[in-house]
């Protein structure tokens, strides 16, 4: 984090210092060079030879950091280099304490210092760095962040050695060798290599950039493959719309496979494959969202390019050529399509073949995209070259992580799982336009790409804090579908907007009416008709976005319909009894074990919140607005399930009378109660599928009875089967706030491993994005105790005993900041002043570069006021 002091220490070589003149056999993206170990200072010829290499490396997009004890003018005078390529030349003067970038006009001082921080901001870390020096052990080269760097040290004068090493890097670039990956165990996820878990591996290793998703299928395919390339918002036109499967563009002719090791690098968003002699690396660009890229190398008797495309779904693959570019397209009848254009550059040198494939995609939701646009764009993109595209992509990922970093000290497995979740959340939605975030995102076919409340309540709150543009795009999806929601409300004879339970392309309800249950039984699905709480969930999401970003203008303007029209729905939906109390009859809450219930606490309280929030919005500009006044009145009348005799919220009317089963008496949770006991039996019991009342304590804690958190959690947790992937992370968040962090950690870990260990048996169909969003919320709202308020950020951490510290980076009201929570202190760092309230204290301004707040561990826990 900025402001953290760094220690000079020895870089730990990832390989023994080289002996002899054998090539290193790896591609590096940065070279750190001890200038003082060369004779470039004394001999113009050596300086000239070095200068030409440095400038060539820049053209090849390789960064060079030249260190010296001398001042910068002396270094620059010695070298005289003026690189003009994508790779930068940095001069680390005065033993590396001052860093300058060499521009066409000369050296310019840059931040951050040290140089490794500069490299890290470009996604270049550890094993991507080659350190060459003659005096390792001195402070000039000793910087943090190089633990996995390759280090070559030499005694005395070894200019030839230095030049050979640099020439090797230039040759590897010219030969289009597959780039390296910094296999930092804190950032890489090895994919399962068990053939029976192939589809799980493909989902885990899925790449994305918010616009497209690409599963990690082997390049040569295979009978077990479930390859997928999909585009956000592009659906089929079948009766039940599903994500349209686009042309998979990664196919290679590979013999004797599939085999090898695949790793997903979370830090730089690339998928790497290696099986000794065959290596591949692919990415979907985070910097240029339309760009796709793949490099491969291997023996000529094993690797060839072949046909780059694979058809994976029902839609046939249409083919075309534009010059030597290959194009493929899938379309859905009467609807849209996806087209991909690629061009391969193949090179054979001796027994080694390298293949470089650059591609461009294009799509349209309602008509087949043409061939010429992607073909034309491909030509322009190719001029940039693979290395530059990769450099831009890495830099874009470094920028993403700068706003979304997670660190959990003392628990590396938890930390990696958390980063895995954040990685896929960042891939779920683009930063612009609209984003239809399905239950499994673009990582698999399951759930057809349909948008549920998973998007609004689980994914969006995380993105609002770590990638606000993406959250805004998710809201744009809802805004553009307000007309369809209004139409549905009108058809039902009610007012306002009735958002659908499952949504796809046009905002109409695409919830299946029937499913095939156990024994082949046709089972009616009532969620589409009864889970009305999604109407309030959409409104809540808009407010959550505004809370994190401070974008009240959205709520008052373009987003106002998401609050006002939803309030109108509730106002027309509530029924008053003879005593004037308000009711919502025949609904289904988040707990889907119980259908057609009356006064589900979750639905009612969220509706109440919705009405009041909309009234706030309207009365802010029109204090006497009669409609807003009516909303407040209805909100006050709406029953919320509070039972003072029990000190609990009743989940729905009649819940207390159900069979008082607790989950652990049936089986150790998690288990699918409707499968184990049958739908009928479980519906007559108090068992619940996932948090319902407890969900309220997570979303709208201020709207519940003070002091009810602990009692509601204690009661309902025992009755929760966690038969939904949405369940454990939310419980983790709430339990942490209820001062039970160690129990919270147990459920956090269940959620964290849900896809990595394929707990549900369905990860093959795609990753559980709601679980991932819930995980981030458990970290942020639960363990870190973050809560955005109108004018400050609440921070009230509660760490489990297994964690030494938890660090998160977020954006609050447009300001980037980091929070590091320890057991007895909170460190906040920021570049601009941020008002915070730590540990229930006063609101104080945290000034740049940061501040430390002590925590009173005996302080009373704030249960949500």
């Amino acid at each position: 984090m900025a402001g953290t002091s760094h220690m000079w220490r020895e870089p730990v070589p990832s390989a023994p210092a080289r002996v002899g003149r054998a090539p290193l056999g790896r591609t590096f993206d940065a070279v750190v060079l001890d200038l003082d170990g060369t004779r470039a200072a004394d001999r113009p010829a050596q300086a000239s030879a070095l200068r030409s290499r440095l400038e060539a490396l820049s053209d090849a997009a390789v960064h060079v950091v030249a260190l010296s004890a001398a001042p910068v003018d002396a270094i620059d005078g010695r070298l005289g280099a003026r690189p003009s390529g994508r790779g930068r030349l940095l001069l680390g003067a005065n033993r590396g304490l001052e860093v300058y970038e060499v521009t066409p006009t000369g050296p310019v001082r840059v931040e951050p210092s040290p140089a490794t921080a500069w490299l890290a901001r470009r996604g270049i870390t550890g094993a991507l760095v080659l350190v060459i020096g003659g005096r390792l052990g001195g402070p000039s080269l000793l910087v943090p962040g190089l633990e996995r760097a390759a280090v070559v040290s030499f005694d005395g004068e070894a200019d030839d050695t230095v030049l050979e090493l640099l020439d090797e890097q230039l040759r590897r670039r010219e030969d289009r060798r597959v780039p390296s990956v910094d296999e930092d165990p804190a950032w890489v996820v090895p994919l399962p290599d068990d053939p029976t878990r192939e589809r799980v591996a493909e989902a885990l290793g899925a790449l994305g950039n918010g616009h497209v998703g690409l599963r990690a299928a082997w390049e040569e395919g295979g009978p077990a493959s479930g390859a997928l390339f999909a585009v956000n918002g592009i659906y089929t036109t079948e009766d039940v719309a599903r994500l349209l499967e686009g042309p998979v563009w990664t196919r290679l002719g590979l013999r004797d496979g599939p085999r090898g090791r695949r790793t997903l690098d979370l830090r730089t968003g690339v998928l790497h494959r290696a099986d000794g002699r065959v290596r591949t690396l692919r990415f979907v660009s985070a910097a240029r969202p339309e760009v796709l890229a793949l490099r491969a190398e291997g023996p000529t008797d094993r690797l060839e390019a072949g046909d780059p495309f694979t058809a994976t779904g029902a839609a046939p693959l249409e083919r075309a050529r534009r010059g030597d570019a290959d194009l493929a397209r899938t379309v859905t009848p009467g609807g849209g399509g996806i087209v991909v254009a690629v061009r391969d550059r193949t090179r054979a040198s001796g027994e080694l073949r390298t293949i470089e494939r650059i591609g461009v995609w294009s799509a349209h939701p309602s008509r087949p995209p043409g061939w010429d646009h992607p073909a034309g764009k491909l030509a322009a993109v190719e001029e940039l070259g693979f290395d530059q595209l990769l450099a831009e992509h890495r830099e874009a990922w470094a920028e993403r992580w700068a706003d979304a970093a997670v660190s959990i000290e003392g628990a590396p497995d938890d930390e990696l799982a958390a980063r895995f979740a954040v990685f896929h959340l960042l891939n779920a939605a683009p930063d612009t336009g609209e984003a239809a975030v399905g239950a499994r995102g673009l990582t698999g076919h399951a759930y057809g790409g349909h948008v549920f409340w998973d998007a609004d309540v689980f994914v969006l709150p995380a993105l609002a804090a770590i990638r606000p543009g993406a959250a805004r795009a998710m809201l744009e999806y809802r805004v553009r579908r307000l007309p369809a929601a209004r139409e549905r409300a009108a058809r039902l004879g009610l007012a306002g907007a009735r958002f659908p339970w499952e949504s796809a392309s046009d905002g109409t309800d695409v919830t299946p009416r029937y499913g095939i249950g156990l024994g082949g039984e046709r089972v009616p699905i009532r969620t589409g008709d009864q889970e009305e709480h999604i109407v309030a969930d959409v409104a809540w999401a808009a407010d959550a976005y505004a809370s994190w970003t401070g974008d009240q203008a959205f709520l008052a303007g373009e987003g106002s319909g998401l609050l006002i029209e939803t309030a109108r729905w509730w106002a027309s939906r509530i029924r008053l009894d003879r005593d004037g109390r308000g009711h919502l009859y025949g609904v289904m809450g988040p707990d889907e074990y119980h259908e057609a219930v009356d006064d589900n606490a979750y639905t009612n309280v969220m509706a109440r919140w919705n009405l009041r929030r909309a009234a706030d919005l309207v009365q802010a500009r029109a204090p006497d607005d009669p409609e807003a006044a009516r909303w407040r009145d209805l909100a006050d009348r709406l029953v919320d399930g509070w039972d003072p005799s029990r000190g609990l919220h009743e989940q729905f009317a009649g819940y207390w009378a159900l069979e008082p089963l607790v989950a652990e008496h049936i089986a150790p949770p998690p288990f699918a109660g409707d499968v184990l006991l049958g739908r009928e039996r479980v519906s007559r019991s108090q068992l619940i599928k996932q948090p319902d009342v407890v969900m309220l304590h997570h979303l709208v804690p201020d709207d519940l009875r003070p002091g009810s958190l602990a009692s509601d959690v204690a009661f309902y947790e025992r009755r929760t089967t966690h038969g939904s992937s949405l369940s454990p992370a939310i419980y983790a968040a709430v339990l942490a706030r209820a001062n039970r962090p160690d129990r919270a950690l147990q459920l956090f870990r269940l959620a964290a491993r849900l896809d990595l260990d394929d707990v549900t048996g369905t990860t093959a169909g795609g990753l559980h994005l709601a679980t991932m969003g819930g995980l981030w919320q458990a970290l942020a709202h639960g363990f870190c105790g973050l809560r955005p308020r109108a004018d400050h950020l609440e921070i009230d951490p509660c760490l489990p005993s297994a964690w030494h510290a938890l660090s998160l980076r977020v954006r609050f009201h447009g300001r980037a900041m980091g929070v590091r929570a320890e057991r007895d202190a909170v460190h906040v760092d920021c570049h601009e002043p941020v008002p915070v309230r730590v540990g229930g204290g006063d609101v104080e301004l945290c000034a740049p570069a940061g501040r430390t707040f002590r925590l009173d561990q005996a302080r009373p826990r704030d249960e949500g006021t």
Partner: protein
Amino acid sequence: MTIVLAALDSSAAARPVLDTAIGLAAVTGAAAHAVHVRENATTTPEALAAQRNIPFREVSGPVHEALLSEFRADDVIVGVLGARGTPTGRRPVGRTAMRVLADVAKPVAVVPPDAVRVSTTAPRRLLVPLEGTAESSEPVAQQLVPLLVPGVELVVVHVFTTSTAPTMIDHPDWGLEAWRSEFLARHCPEAAVIDLRTGSVGGRIIEAAADAGAQLIVLSWSQDVSPGRAAVVRTILEHSTLPVLLLPGGHRPAEAPVEADLSGRRR
């Protein structure tokens, strides 16, 4: 030439045994043959074989050893025998049959005397119960699937128990669809359909077979017939009115030595 060998006795099981063998021969592209181990002078098995125009042999010796020897012949790919002599006979299967089943490292179909849906045509729908383990699915993949001619439908059934029920099903349609899809892809990609049930495993399998209109049940098993083992297999053999094709897999007991006199004549 590969052979499906029917072991005929003089009981009521003989006819359905022979017809099952003919059907299995048709579905595997093999030839059906019949053998009878003569314990007493009777011509019923021979006559049956003659009716179906099936090559027939008669051998002498202790029945268990003789059948083992016959079933173990290199050209025999599937053995077929009767579960018991009469519909009310020894449950789940006769002692001799059980010994043979335990000792033959090949697929053996066990046919009840009151078998239904047995004809001489190739069975078109096979019910394949799978546990979701390699021990359960590998025998199907290695011993059954390679033998089948095109057009045979495999219907997988999986019975959830407390220990095997899915941990989470988010959605009654999409969730089970995703679970089904992956289970089939992982354990029996040749099958187009999977039937999910809960409850008593053996009973649900028999129900599923009836509901699916299957003509044969295929079970992988460990061949461990010690007390308390192979409970599901025993239940199905006892109560099923369909032939049951047992595929040996997992740990197998060492094959018992064959001591019978293998003299005999072929029709």
